[in-house]
C-alpha cells in the first residue's frame, strides 16, 4: 500500500516526466483562464511528454511493481505521445477556428484542455502500468475523460452519444475488472498474495503454472470488456457516435490512441494465455470477432452519410483486421497486427485531422455536401486522398504491408479464413473509395461556406500534422527501422 | 533455277489466264441461258478499253481510293503466286502458306472495303458492310479448312500439301470430303458468286462486291475487276491442286512433266469453270441475312472436318 510509493520513479527516470507532465498540466489547465495560452500550454506539455518518451528509446528504466517498459509498450508510448503532440498542434488550430465560430465557451475550453492532458495521462499510465489493476483504473479513467469531451458541444446528439458511450463502456470496463480479478485468482496460488500476482513482468515468467481453466474464463471477460473499448463488433455501438459527435481532435485520439490502448490491454492478457500453454487458445474467438467487425463495418460504410461516422466505422474495420491477425497468431500475422496498429493510429488520426478541417471549411459533416476537395483545397484535398488511400490499404503506404502479411500468411495456413478476410477488405475498400471519390473529386460547390476568416497561419498549422503523419506512413510502408522490427518480432513471439 | 523460272511462269500465267476463265464462265452461262454470248476473250478487250479511259475520281475521295485498286490487285496476285498451278517447284512457295493466303485475300478485301467507304456514298458503305460480314464467316471457314488439311497432311503450305497428296499419303477420307465442301462454299463467297453475290447485278438490294467498286472507272475499274478474275483463278487452282493434283509437275520433273502439268491445269480450270457456269445458272441468289447460315455451315463443316480426322485415326 504505502509501499507502492517506493516504486514511484525518480527524477532521472523518463517515466516520471512522461506521466507527470500530462498530469501536472491537466491540473494547471483547469485553472488557466485564457484559452489561447491554454492551447499552447497544451502543445508544449505534449511536446515535453513526447521528448521524454524519446528518451525511452535510449535507455529503459528498470521495471518496478507499478511501472515498466518493455519491447511491447515502448513503441506504443512513443506513438501515443507523438500522436498526442500532433493532435495538440492540430487542436490548437482547430480550437482557434471553433472559437471564432463561437461554438465553444471559455469554460468549455478550459475544461477541454485539461481533459485532453488528463486523457493523455491515463493512456500513458495504462501503457506503462505493471499492474493489471492500475491498468484497469487507467482505462476506466480514460473512459471518463473522453465521455466528458464527447459531450463537449452540449448538443442533443453529443449528449446522446456520450450517454451511449458511457453506459456501454462502463459495463464493458466492469466486465474487464471481473476478468482482471479472475486472472489475479489464477495467479495468486502461484505468486502469493499481493501486488506480485498482478505484475505483468512477474506473472509472465510463471504463467505456465497458472490455473488454465480460470485463465480461459478470465479471457472471455477481458475480451468482452476491453473488446468493447476496442470497438469489436457486436460490442462496437458506442464508437461511431462517440467519434462523430465530439470535437474532431478527440475523434483523432479516440481512434488513434484509445483503441490501441484497449487492444494493448487485451494483448497483454493474451500473452499470459500464450505463456501458460494449457489454456484454450483464444485464437478462434479473436478471429471470429475480427471477422464480424470487419464485415459489419464494411457494410456499414456503404450507408454512412456522416463523414466522421464513416471513418469511425473504418476504425472498427481495422480493429477487426488487427484482432483477426492476432487471432491467427504466428510470427507473420502477429507482426502484421502490431504493424497495423501503428499504421492505423497514424493514418486514422491524420484522416480525422483532415476531416476536422473539411467540416470546418464546408460547414457540414454530410458527405453528400462535400465535393471536389482536390479542386477547392488542393493541399488539404490531396492530403485527404492520400490518407484515405492509405487506410484503404493501397501501397506504398504502411497499411498495405500489414494487410499483405495478414492475408498472405492466413491464406497459406487457413484458406477458408483468408477468403472472408479478403472479401471484407475488398468490400470496405469499395465503400471508402466510392466516398473518397465523391468528396475529393468532382465539381466543387460554387459557394464555399464562409470560414474565410481563418488566418493562413492556423490553416498551415492545421495541415502540418496531417502531412507529417502521412509522410511517416509513407516511409513506414517502405522502410521500418531495425529496432522497431526487432521489438515487433519479440512481441510477436510472446503473443504466440 | 527451275524453281525461279517456274515461279516467274506462274506469276504471269495466272494473270494471263484469269480473264479467259472468267470469259469462259460467262460464255457457259450465256449458252445455258439460251444466248449466244460474247467470246471468252472478251474480258481482254474490256481491259484494254478500260485502260484507255481516263479515271474519274470523286471530289471527296482520298488517296486510299486511288491506291486501293493497285494494292488489291497486287495482293491477290501475290496470293496467286504461291498456289501451285502446274508445278510445285516454285521459289516463293515457302514464303506463305494457306493461312497467309487467307490473310492476303483479306488485305485485298480490306482495301476494297475501305475504297468503298472512301467516297462517302451510301452504296459504298453498304457493300463494305456486307462484304465484311461475309468475310467474317468465310475467313474462319477457310482457316478451318486449312486446319483440317494441315492435320491430314501435316503441313499448311499448299505446295507441300499437294506434294503429300501426290505422294499417295491420303486415301479417301470423310474429313477430306467435308473440307472440300467447306472450301467450295468459301470459294463461292470469296469470289462473290451466286448464291452469295451476283457479279452481274447492280441492284442495290443484292449488291455486295459491286457496290464497293461502284465509283471506279477506267484503269482503276480494270484493276478491281482483274483482281476478281485472278482470285477466281486462284481458287480454282487451289481446289483442283489439293483435291485433284494429278498431273502436277514435281521438283525434278523435266520439260515434258512441266508441259503435262500445264495441260492438266488448263483442263482442270476448264472443267471447274464449266461447272461453275452450270451451277450459277441453276441456283438462285440468297437473301442477305441467309448468308450467315450458309457460311456458318461452311465454318461448321470445316470444324467437323478437323474432328472427323480423329474418327478416321481412331478406327
Amino acid at each position, binding site marked *: 500500500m504505502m509501499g507502492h510509493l517506493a516504486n514511484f520513479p525518480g527524477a532521472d527516470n523518463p517515466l516520471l516526466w512522461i506521466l507527470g507532465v500530462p498530469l501536472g498540466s491537466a491540473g494547471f489547465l483547469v485553472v488557466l483562464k485564457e484559452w489561447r495560452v491554454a492551447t499552447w500550454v497544451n502543445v508544449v506539455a505534449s511536446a515535453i511528454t513526447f521528448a521524454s518518451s524519446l528518451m525511452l528509446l535510449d535507455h529503459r528504466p528498470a521495471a518496478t511493481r507499478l511501472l515498466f517498459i518493455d519491447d511491447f509498450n515502448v513503441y506504443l508510448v512513443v506513438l501515443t505521445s507523438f500522436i498526442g503532440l500532433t493532435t495538440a498542434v492540430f487542436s490548437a488550430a482547430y480550437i482557434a477556428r471553433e472559437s471564432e465560430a463561437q461554438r465553444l465557451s471559455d469554460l468549455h475550453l478550459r475544461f477541454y484542455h485539461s481533459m485532453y492532458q488528463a486523457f493523455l495521462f491515463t493512456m500513458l499510465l495504462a501503457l506503462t502500468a505493471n499492474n493489471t489493476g492500475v491498468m484497469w483504473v487507467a482505462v476506466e479513467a480514460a473512459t471518463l475523460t473522453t465521455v466528458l469531451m464527447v459531450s463537449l458541444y452540449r448538443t442533443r446528439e453529443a449528449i446522446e452519444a456520450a450517454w451511449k458511450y458511457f453506459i456501454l463502456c462502463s459495463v464493458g470496463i466492469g466486465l474487464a475488472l471481473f476478468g482482471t480479478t479472475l486472472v489475479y485468482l489464477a495467479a495468486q496460488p502461484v505468486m502469493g498474495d499481493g501486488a506480485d500476482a498482478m505484475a505483468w513482468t512477474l506473472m509472465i515468467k510463471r504463467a505456465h503454472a497458472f490455473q488454465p481453466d480460470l485463465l480461459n474464463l478470465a479471457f472471455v471477460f477481458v475480451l468482452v470488456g476491453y473488446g468493447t473499448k476496442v470497438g469489436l463488433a457486436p460490442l462496437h455501438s458506442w464508437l461511431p457516435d462517440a467519434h462523430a459527435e465530439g470535437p474532431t481532435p478527440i475523434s483523432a485520439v479516440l481512434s488513434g490512441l484509445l483503441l490501441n490502448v484497449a487492444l494493448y490491454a487485451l494483448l497483454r492478457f493474451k500473452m499470459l494465455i500464450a505463456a501458460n500453454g494449457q489454456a484454450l487458445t483464444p485464437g478462434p474467438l479473436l478471429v471470429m470477432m475480427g471477422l464480424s467487425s470487419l464485415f459489419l463495418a464494411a457494410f456499414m460504410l456503404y450507408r454512412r452519410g456522416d463523414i466522421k461516422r464513416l471513418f469511425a466505422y473504418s476504425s472498427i474495420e481495422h480493429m477487426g483486421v488487427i484482432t483477426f491477425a492476432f487471432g491467427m497468431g504466428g510470427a507473420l500475422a502477429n507482426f502484421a497486427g502490431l504493424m497495423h496498429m501503428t499504421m492505423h493510429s497514424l493514418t486514422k488520426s491524420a484522416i480525422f485531422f483532415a476531416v476536422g478541417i473539411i467540416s470546418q471549411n464546408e460547414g457540414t459533416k454530410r458527405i453528400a455536401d462535400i465535393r471536389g476537395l482536390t479542386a477547392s483545397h488542393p493541399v488539404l484535398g490531396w492530403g485527404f486522398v492520400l490518407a484515405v488511400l492509405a487506410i484503404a490499404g493501397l501501397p506504398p503506404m504502411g497499411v498495405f504491408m500489414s494487410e499483405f502479411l495478414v492475408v498472405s500468411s492466413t491464406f497459406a495456413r487457413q484458406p477458408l479464413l483468408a477468403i472472408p478476410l479478403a472479401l471484407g477488405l475488398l468490400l470496405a475498400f469499395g465503400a471508402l473509395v466510392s466516398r473518397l471519390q465523391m468528396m475529393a473529386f468532382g465539381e466543387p460547390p460554387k459557394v464555399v461556406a464562409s470560414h474565410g476568416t481563418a488566418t493562413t497561419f492556423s490553416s498551415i498549422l492545421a495541415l502540418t500534422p496531417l502531412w507529417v503523419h502521412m509522410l511517416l506512413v509513407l516511409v513506414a510502408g517502405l522502410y521500418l527501422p531495425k529496432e522497431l522490427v526487432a521489438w515487433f518480432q519479440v512481441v510477436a513471439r510472446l503473443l504466440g | 533455277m527451275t524453281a525461279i523460272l517456274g515461279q516467274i511462269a506462274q506469276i504471269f500465267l495466272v494473270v494471263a489466264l484469269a480473264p479467259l476463265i472468267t470469259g469462259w464462265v460467262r460464255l457457259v452461262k450465256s449458252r445455258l441461258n439460251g444466248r449466244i454470248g460474247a467470246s471468252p476473250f472478251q474480258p481482254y478487250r474490256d481491259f484494254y478499253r478500260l485502260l484507255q479511259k481516263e479515271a474519274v475520281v470523286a471530289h471527296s475521295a482520298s488517296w486510299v481510293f486511288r491506291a486501293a485498286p493497285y494494292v488489291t490487285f497486287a495482293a491477290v496476285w501475290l496470293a496467286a503466286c504461291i498456289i501451285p498451278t502446274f508445278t510445285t517447284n516454285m521459289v516463293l512457295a*515457302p514464303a506463305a502458306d494457306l493461312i497467309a493466303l487467307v*490473310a492476303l485475300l483479306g488485305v485485298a478485301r480490306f482495301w476494297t472495303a475501305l475504297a468503298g467507304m472512301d467516297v462517302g456514298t451510301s452504296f459504298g458503305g453498304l457493300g*463494305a458492310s456486307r462484304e465484311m460480314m461475309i468475310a467474317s464467316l468465310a475467313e474462319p471457314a477457310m482457316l478451318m479448312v486449312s486446319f483440317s488439311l494441315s492435320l491430314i497432311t501435316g503441313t499448311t*503450305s499448299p505446295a507441300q500439301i499437294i506434294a503429300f497428296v501426290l505422294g499417295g499419303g491420303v486415301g479417301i477420307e470423310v474429313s477430306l470430303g467435308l473440307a472440300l465442301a467447306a472450301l467450295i462454299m468459301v470459294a463461292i463467297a470469296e469470289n462473290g458468286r451466286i448464291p452469295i453475290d451476283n457479279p452481274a447485278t447492280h441492284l442495290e438490294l443484292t449488291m455486295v462486291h459491286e457496290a464497293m467498286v461502284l465509283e471506279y472507272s477506267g484503269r482503276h475499274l480494270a484493276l478491281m475487276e482483274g483482281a476478281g478474275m485472278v482470285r477466281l483463278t486462284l481458287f480454282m487452282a487451289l481446289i483442283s491442286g489439293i483435291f485433284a493434283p494429278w498431273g502436277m509437275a514435281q521438283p525434278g520433273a523435266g520439260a515434258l512433266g512441266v508441259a503435262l502439268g500445264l495441260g492438266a491445269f488448263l483442263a482442270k480450270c476448264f472443267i471447274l469453270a464449266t461447272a461453275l457456269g452450270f451451277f450459277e445458272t441453276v441456283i438462285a441468289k440468297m437473301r442477305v441475312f441467309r448468308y450467315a447460315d450458309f457460311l456458318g455451315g461452311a465454318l461448321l463443316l470445316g470444324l467437323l472436318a478437323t474432328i472427323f480426322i480423329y474418327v478416321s485415326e481412331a478406327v
Partner: protein
Amino acid sequence: MLIASALSALLALAVFGVLAGGEMWRHRVVYLGCAIASLVLLAGGLKHLGQTPGTGPAIVLPIGLPWMAAHFRLDNLSALFMVIVNLGTTAASVFGIGYCDHVPEPRRVTPFFPLFLFGMNAVLISDDAFMFLVSWEFMSLASWLLVLSDHRNEESRSAAFVYLMMATFGTFCLLTCFGLMAGAEGGYSFPAMRLHGMDGLTSFLVVLLALLGAGSKAGLVPLHAWLPLAHPAAPSHVSALMSGVMTKVALYGLIRILFDLHGHVAWGWGAVLMGIGGVTAVLGVLYAILQDDLKKLLAYSTVENIGVVVIGLGLAIAFKDSGEKALAALALVAGLYHIINHSIFKTLLFLSAGAVITATGERSLNKLGGLLNRMPWTGAATLVGALAISALPPLNGFVSEWLIFQSLFKGPSLPHWAMKFGVPVVGAMLALAAALAASCFVRAYGIAFLGRPRSQAAAEAHTLPFSMRWSMAVLAALCIILGAVPVTVTDAVSHVVQPLTGVSFAVSADLGWPWLSPVSSTRGSYSGTVLVMTGLSLFVICIVLVHGFGTTRVRRADAWDCGHRENIVNAQYSGESFAQPLRRVFCSSLFGVKETVTMPDPGDMAPAKLEVRVIDRIWVFLYLGIGRVVGFVADRVNRMQFLTVRRYLLMMFATLVFMLLVVAVRQQK
C-alpha cells in the same frame, strides 16, 4: 545502374510535375524527361535481351518487408517486357509533349504520368512478392488518378471507381496466390517460391488466383468490364499506355507466375486458358464492333487481343505439361510476339484517337469522317495500325497470329481428348475473332477517316504539333518493320522463352533467316521479308503495266452513286448501319441488342429514327448483381446503427453469454 537512375529520374519528374503549376513549358519538360527516361529503360532492356539467356544481376534495397528487403532483378523475361513497356511509354511521352495542353486539367495528369511509368517498370524488375504487389498496386493507383484527371465528369468518376475496385480485386487475388506459394513461413522472394513445392490443391488454387488476379488486370472475360470504362476515360496518351502497355504488364504477371514461379501447371489449365482466351477474343471484338465511341472501341479491341495472347499461353501450358517442349516454346513465342505487336499498334491507335480528339474534339464515330484529307499523317499512321491490328500481312499483327495458328494446328497432337476436340473449336474462335477484327477496323477507319465529314468539327479538323505526329509515325514504322523482319524478333524472344520452357528453340531454325518455319520446313513457313519484297515488285509491275498500256489521266468529279447524286452527308453509312449485318448475325441474343425503329406518321416530314440499345449482359448480371447484393445486405446491416442502448447492451450480453458457453463446452472436452 542505368535502369535504377532512370527510375529515380521518373520519381523526380513526378515531384517536378507537382511543382509545375500552370506553366505549360514545365509540363512539356516533364514529358520530355519521361521520354528520355523511357528511352534509357528501353535501351537497358534491349541490352539485356541481347545477352545470352540467364539471370541478370540482382539488386537488394533495404526497403519493403523488413526482414527480407526488396529484391530486384532483370532477367530475360522482364527485359523483354521492359522493352515492350518502354516502347509504348516512349511514344506516349513524346506524344504527351505536344498533347499535354489538350487534356482537361494538365496539373492532374503530369505528376502522375511519371509515377505510372515508374510503377509499370517496377513491376517488371521486382524479384519478390511484396515489391511486385507494391509496384503492381502502385501502377493501378497512378493510373486510377490519371483516369480521374477528368474528375468533373461523372462518367470518368464511376469508371475510375470500377477500375480501382477491379484492380484491387486483382491485387487481393495475387496476394493470396503469392501467399500460397510463399507458404506459412513467408518465403516471399521469387527464388524461394520457385523452390517451394506444392500439393495438388495448392497448385490448383495458385493457378486459379493468378488467373483471376492477372486476368482482371488484363481484361479477360468476364473480368473485362472495367477496361472499356476506364481506358477511354483517361487522357489519350494515358489510355494508350493503359491499353497498350499496362495490360501487358498484367500478362507479364501471368507468365511470371504460370511459367516461372509455379512452373508445373497442369494441362487442364491450359485448356481453361484457351477456352477463356477464345471467348474473350470473340466477345471482345463483337463488343468492339458495336461501339460508337472511338476509344471504347479500341478498349474492347484490347480485350480481344488479350484473348488471343491467352490462347497462345494456354497452348504453351498444355504443350509444356505434355512434354512437348519445343511446341510449348513455339506457342509461347507466338503469345509473346503478339504481346509485342499489340503493345505497338494499340498504342499507335490510341494515340491517333487522341490526335483525332485533339483535332476535332469528337470521339464519336458518327461525328467524324473524311479526316484522312485533313490529317494525312495521322490518317496514314492509323491506317497502318488498323491493318496491323486486323492481322493482315505483311504487318506485324499477322506474324503473331500466324505463329499462334501454327501452334494451334499442332494442338491435336496432344494426348488429351479434350484438347483434340477443344483445339479446333478454339481455332475457329480465333479465326472468327481475327476476321471480325478486320471488319471492326474497316468500320472504324472507314467511318472516321474516309468518306465525308459528318460534323462541322470533323470538317474543320486542325493540324497537330509535330511531336504527336512523330510518335505515331515511329510506331507505324515499327508495325511494318516487325512484320517485315519477324525472324529477328522471334530469335530474340526465343532467348526469353528458353528458361521458361526448358528448351532452346528458334522458330527460324530449319530454313534460317528470313524464314519462319516452326517445327520443320515442310510444316508450312512464312517469310514477311520475302513477301514484302515480292509484293512490292508486283505492285510496281502492276503500276508499270497499267500505266504503260493505258492512260494516266484522272478527272475529279462528283460521286456517281448509282446516279443518285444527292449531297446529304448523313446518307453515308454510319457506325450503326455498318455494324448492322454483324449485329444481326452475331449479337442479337448474345448482347440483348434491341433495335427500335420509330417511323413518322404518313405525311409527317420528321425523319425516321432507329435506336440501337446494346446490353452487356455480363455487366448487368455479374457486376450490377454484386452491387445489388451488397446494397441489400448493407441496408439490413445498417439497421444496427439505429438501435437503443438497451439493445446494444443486449448484443454485448449475448456475446458474453455465447463466449461463456463456448468456454463451458470446450472445457468439458
